[in-house]
């Protein structure tokens, strides 16, 4: 026997959960699907492809007050109400990867605190095997029914809802989604790392050209579910009695990012800054974690106002790299 839930009951589940948790889920707004706080039985866009802002904003807010010093005494930010995020498998994978990055010493305790009070509910049309990093995954089996897979205590708690019914596992008739070209590219993170690193010296024209297109607006970084860079600043109250430490999302494509005291900038041109974005995602992340810092969600290319498409760039770099290396042997 397994636990199943009819598709039409999932919004009711979300609204039931709002009694004990803040619930965030993808909902349709105008032409877009966006993450939003759920009140009552909002329609949930279970099968979204990508939202402009990624779920990282719930664990690493775009603007955050970390702590305050009031009259020389430290005050931590208030407790965070437990929350639940409904998300797809790519976004889930991104959160799992971000967890690894943030746990690395020095660990980001502010991020980890938010993660500890959060529950991840993934929805998917793919067959679910072993623990995938979610607390609960709802797998679409046919037109009207989802099968629940709980992996943690937090998941088990949600399963107690009477909206789930005991039933034999329904026959799978929902179509298994096929990996696209971008997903396939990411299967070989090692090759991507080699191609990107190789291109700096061997395909400078690629980066020259991109340096002449990129607007350094930072959007690709803000929308990326895996970019995690922030900048910190202190706000002092007018009478000087209160000082608040704040942090904000930052982007390595922005000029001030690599600038250090004294005004020296380590990546002085847009070409260098743009290359760094690639270098961090595909080379440094691979060396550090054995995996590209990308889940092929497609956000950066969809929302880049200059139309820069990283899938195309990666495809070309890999082709050029392979060509150069077969010629030599």
């Amino acid at each position, binding site marked *: 026997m397994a636990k199943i839930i009819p598709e039409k009951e999932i919004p009711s589940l979300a609204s039931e959960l709002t009694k004990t948790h803040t619930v965030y889920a993808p909902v349709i707004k105008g032409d877009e699907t966006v993450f939003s706080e759920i009140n009552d039985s909002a329609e949930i866009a279970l099968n979204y492809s990508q939202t*402009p802002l990624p779920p990282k904003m719930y664990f690493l807010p775009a603007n955050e007050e970390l702590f305050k010093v009031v009259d020389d005494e430290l005050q931590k930010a208030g407790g965070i109400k437990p929350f639940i995020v409904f998300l797809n498998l790519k976004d889930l994978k991104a959160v799992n990867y971000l967890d690894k990055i943030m746990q690395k010493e020095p660990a980001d305790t502010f991020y980890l605190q938010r993660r500890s009070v959060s529950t991840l509910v993934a929805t998917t049309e793919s067959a679910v095997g072993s623990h995938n990093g979610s607390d609960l995954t709802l797998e679409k089996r046919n037109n009207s029914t989802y099968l629940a897979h709980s992996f943690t205590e937090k998941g088990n708690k949600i399963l107690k809802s009477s909206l789930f019914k005991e039933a034999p596992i329904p026959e799978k008739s929902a179509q298994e989604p096929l990996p696209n070209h971008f997903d396939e590219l990411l299967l070989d993170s090692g090759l991507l790392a080699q191609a990107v690193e190789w291109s700096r010296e061997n395909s400078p024209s690629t980066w020259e050209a991109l340096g002449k297109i990129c*607007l350094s*607006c930072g959007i690709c970084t803000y929308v990326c579910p895996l970019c995690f860079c922030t900048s910190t600043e202190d706000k002092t109250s007018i009478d000087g009695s209160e000082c608040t430490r704040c942090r904000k999302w930052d982007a390595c494509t922005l*000029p001030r990012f690599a600038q250090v005291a004294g005004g020296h900038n380590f990546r002085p041109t*847009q070409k260098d800054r743009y290359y760094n974005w690639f270098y961090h995602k595909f080379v440094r992340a691979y060396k550090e974690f054995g995996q590209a810092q990308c889940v092929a969600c497609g956000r950066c290319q969809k*929302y880049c106002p200059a139309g820069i498409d990283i899938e195309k760039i990666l495809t070309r770099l890999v082709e050029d790299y392979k060509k150069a290396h077969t010629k030599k042997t």
Partner: protein
Amino acid sequence: MKNKPKIAIFDFTDCEGCEVALVSLREKLVEIATETEIVNWRLAQKKADDGPYDIVLIEGTPITQTEIDTLKFLRGQTKILVGLGSCATLAGIPGIIDKEARSGWYEKIYGKDYKPRGIDALPLSAYVLVDYSIHGCPVDKSELLRVIQELLAGKTPKNPGYSVCFECKLAGNPCRLLDKKPCLGPITAGGCGAICIKGGSPCYGCFGIRQDAQVDNLVMTLRKFSDPAKIENYFSMFLKKTPEYKKLFDNKKERNGKP
């Protein structure tokens, strides 16, 4: 108790909208007035002491010779001089008209015998050293507060290093450029909350050009759906008196019309 810093606020040619923003800080303004001494502010009080001052905030564009002389005099009277709002920091709306066009209009409106007092609308920085510019038309209240707090804490404030796009994305606006509509957000310093985009208009750059902005790259993107004359128009709303504008549009003949 240490001496409270002396603040003075002056205005030149403008709409006084930024001073209104200052007034509407309300209780925060009261706090500022408690921690400092506002010794001269024509718009809000009778007290009008002479210098020297610690901080002078100047709103508006100096257009007449008297205003230019006053500005130079005030520079000598204060430790810190701050431009308040885009009229002061960029020449803003008064700067839309060129020097030549200005005299043409004077003649058309007031007749041949009129002796105009206005010379040209240039930002404060064309005449004196400006220590800090609070851009915006009008200035954003929280930015204004941030700068004042930092000045009082003895820090050197910095303009936001990110673009309007940051706040625009957070606000959930659809991106205009993706919809083939003009926007100067990517080259403009953030801090305004992307209010114009929220209201359905383009960003015209009133918060000033961001450090190391990719102006040429943006012009290339705009060129995909907009003609050069229109692009020049977007830039001339607030940025006409900036070096970037001059580079793009003022000597375009020599460069075969290519920006």
